[in-house]
């Protein structure tokens, strides 16, 4: 029975918990912790880019021998960008975002007592935790952390002779990622099974909130693509440690010819990007799902074009698995393949455009409640469009030639997947914090956080496009080796100032988050006047989510401001929760 309470010890309640709500909080806090590390790293390397050769005591303080005299070494610079990318993409925006909100919302919004397998869910979190620990430990090894870029292309990542970060640091990176993948697969399988099997009575697939659709489809592409990265990592481990030649061939380094013969780094690139591109959507779709929910709720309007939104999520997910080659237009891949990938890649713009226009139409004639969650969601739509549009350049093979691997790419993906996804995550935290902790976050700090973050995000990444168009390659320790880039220094300084302000502004969020857990104002049951089922569950967290019977679902999730035949709001309020039966004379949408 659901309202039967087990005797819980501290360990089973807070540490080895099998309750999806606790696991979700564990994911969130771990994600925030990793995020702090990664954002801090980005502030350090932005300092290096804007003020090369200048001495900063903060660099010496944190980087030690690699930052002697307050100037970081080239190897350390590459390590910082590598680990920043790895942590942000996988640990923060995959585990921190999807792990937190899929866990919290799937059971609560579909009306389930818990995940299909609470035990698997617990293992999933603890493997994630283990992989985070290993990744953090790798920062402290003597030869330095992995530094071949987050894409770890061999042979650079395979040969310790090529760079010092490819020694023990790289081994730990690979071990950490292998464990991470296992964790994320367990999570994803659990999400899929739960959504398919444990929906409450009346919760048809066509009545699922868009959040759940997004998490569900995300889990499916995760299950399809993550195993491929695992195999890529395993083969790389074989090449590194057991002398195989999957990726390596004809290499002369450090004065000797190596024995490798017949392998190809391009194979690795294919395997990597077969995950790598869907990964973009693994990161982005949950953020879009959260946005759909937050925008509809706070516009006090149904999301526009629910079916089109679902179809475009599915279309994006499908297309995302057949476009990976657009990362490889200039790798020596057959030009004909390049044509195919250009075609499939640019097609993604269609469902993306549908989503963007549907969001805009949802705002139209709404009664917008501009709370922090809503601001971040609107911000997401803005950055998603700004960043997404330049995909038309990068996805077009002919145009990609000249901007490939320049800062244009860095600007593009930071806006469209980095900033957008992190905005989605913030929106989710502000929106569901009351559900997680039973208290409200401080709204004014939330506003301050949004405004500084939004302005600095644009301030960093918009000018960056032009630095790329000027031909500046990414992953350059300094631009001073080329006089042609001397005139970019002042743009770099502007970006760095924005980046540091934006990074420091996250302190506001962290302060707000942790203090609100303990000191926040007590939250009412349904603070945002929302329709979805999670707000019918009692404030006090309990195993099984609802005392007594699980509510039945009678309608879709978006009956906001629905009018009866007299032009009055149904029931006198502008929202009708999903568990309210269809009224007499009311048409179900």
């Amino acid at each position, binding site marked *: 029975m659901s309202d039967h309470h087990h005797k819980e010890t501290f360990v089973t309640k807070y540490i080895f918990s099998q309750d999806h709500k606790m696991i979700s909080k564990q994911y969130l806090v771990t994600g925030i912790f990793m995020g702090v590390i990664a954002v801090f790293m980005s502030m350090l390397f932005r300092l290096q880019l804007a003020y090369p050769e200048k001495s900063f005591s903060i660099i010496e*303080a944190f980087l030690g021998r690699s930052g002697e005299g307050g100037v970081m070494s080239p190897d350390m610079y590459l390590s910082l960008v590598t680990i920043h990318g790895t942590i942000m993409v996988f640990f923060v925006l995959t585990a921190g975002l999807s792990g937190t909100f899929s866990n919290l919302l799937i059971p609560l919004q579909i009306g389930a007592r818990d995940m299909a397998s609470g035990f698997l869910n617990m293992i999933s979190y603890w493997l994630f935790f283990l992989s985070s620990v290993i990744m953090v430990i790798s920062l402290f090894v003597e030869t330095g952390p992995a530094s071949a870029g987050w894409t770890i292309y061999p042979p650079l990542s395979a040969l310790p002779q090529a760079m010092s970060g490819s020694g023990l640091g790289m081994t730990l990176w690979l071990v950490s990622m292998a464990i991470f993948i296992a964790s994320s697969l367990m999570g994803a399988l659990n999400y899929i099974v739960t959504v398919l099997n444990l929906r409450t009575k009346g919760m048809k697939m066509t009545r699922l909130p868009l959040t759940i659709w997004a998490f569900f489809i995300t889990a499916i592409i995760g299950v399809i693509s993550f195993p491929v990265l695992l195999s890529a990592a395993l083969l790389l481990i074989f090449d590194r440690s057991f002398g195989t030649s999957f990726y390596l061939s004809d290499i002369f380094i450090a004065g000797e010819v190596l024995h490798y013969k017949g392998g*190809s*780094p391009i194979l690795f690139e294919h395997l990597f990007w077969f995950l790598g591109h869907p990964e973009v959507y693994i990161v982005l779709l949950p953020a879009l799902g959260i946005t759909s929910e937050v925008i509809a709720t706070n516009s006090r309007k149904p999301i526009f074009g629910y079916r089109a939104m679902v179809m475009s999520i599915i279309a994006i997910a499908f297309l995302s698995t057949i476009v990976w080659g657009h990362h490889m237009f200039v*790798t020596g891949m057959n030009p004909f393949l390049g044509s195919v990938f250009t075609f499939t890649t640019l*097609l993604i713009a269609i469902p993306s455009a549908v989503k963007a226009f549907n969001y805009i139409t949802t705002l139209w004639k709404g009664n917008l409640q501009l709370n922090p969650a809503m601001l971040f969601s609107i911000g997401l739509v803005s950055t998603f469009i700004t960043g997404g549009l330049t995909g038309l350049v990068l996805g*077009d093979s*002919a145009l990609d030639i000249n901007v490939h691997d320049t800062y244009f790419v860095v600007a593009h993906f930071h806006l469209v997947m980095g900033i957008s996804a992190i905005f989605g995550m913030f929106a989710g935290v502000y929106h569901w914090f009351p559900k997680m902790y039973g208290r409200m976050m401080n709204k004014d700090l939330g506003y301050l956080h949004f405004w500084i973050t939004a302005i600095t995000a644009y301030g960093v990444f918009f000018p960056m496009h032009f630095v790329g168009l000027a031909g500046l390659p990414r992953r350059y320790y300094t631009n001073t080796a080329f*006089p042609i880039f001397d005139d970019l220094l002042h743009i770099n300084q502007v970006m760095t100032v924005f980046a540091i302000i934006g990074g420091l502004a996250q302190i506001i969020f962290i302060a707000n988050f942790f203090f609100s857990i303990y000191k926040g104002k007590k939250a009412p049951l349904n603070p945002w006047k929302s329709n979805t089922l999670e707000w019918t569950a009692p404030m006090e967290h309990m195993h099984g989510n609802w005392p007594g019977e699980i509510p039945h679902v009678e309608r879709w999730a978006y009956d906001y*401001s629905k*009018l009866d035949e007299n032009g009055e709001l149904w029931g006198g309020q502008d929202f009708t929760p999903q568990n309210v039966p269809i009224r007499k004379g009311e048409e179900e949408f």
Partner: protein
Amino acid sequence: MKALFFIIIFVALAVACWQFVKLLGLAKADDQTATEKENNINGWLMLILMGFIYGLMVYSMYGAKDVLLPQLSASEEGKHIDILFKITMVLIMVVQFITQFLIFYFTFKYRGIKGRKAYFFADSHKLETIWTVIPAVVLAGLIFYGLWTWNQVMDSSDAENPLMVELYAKQFQWEARYAGNDHELGYANVRFIEGTNTMGVDFSDKNALDDIPLMVSEGKFVKELHLPKGRPVIFKLRSQDVLHSAYMPHFRAQMNCVPGMVTEISFTPTVTTAEMRLNDDTVAKYEGINKIRSDRGDETVEFDYLLLCNKICGSNHYNMQLKIVVDEEEDFNKWLASQKTFAQLNNKN
């Protein structure tokens, strides 16, 4: 322990944030979604954010005018790319301008007012069709034009009398080899690297001996690579150790160098170095650069074409470069004739 000091500062900042709010008494009880006042302030701020984004767009474009690559492409193929790029950018700007306006204007206009009813508008087949079909049609055009351009750029089969040049990448420098009189590059593999044969050329191959190398000699890097104006150049790219990428931004050309295989890219240079130095964009850009350099006390520089490494390849990746000089064909031939072939070099040894 200085690190600890900085961490303590960050934590103190966080505490200060919270105290600040408490002090101002802003942590007030309120209507939970958003008050009318909050909607009003944030609605206006959203308009300001829109202004900021537009301002940033204009400022970036204006400010970047002189720092971008010269508009004039230095290769035949680059011209096709530039046209496609311009079309795409205009499209992007228009869509960006309109959609951002709609987002922020709607946010402002429909900011919440107590008692106003939102318009229940859940679906419209017509609208959905419009914004599925229009992007599809526009994209179809873009895709077909893009693929046509891609073929123009990548297909070198119709090149007449091409110059064969090999670029050889290694941590952290470039070497090069011209095919010589037979227009064929001799076979090479890292397993032949020995002594002065730094490119691993197989001298038993009949095509090899007339090849003209630009090699590292006595520890000195290769200084410059010469190319003729108006003659198609086919580059064969190899790498000795890790992935590199040969990036020649002025020619709109880039291709990776992959250990274990030979990759290819080709273009026809159309502007000599001397001509490019007189180009308006170049003059403006280098005026800016030289002003910055002389303010700093560095020597002034002249425009040169560049070959950069654009695939992370190790600690000195940021400084793996080679100067490219485009000459009139006559001057180029003269220059090439003054370089030594492998046969000549090997005899001397």
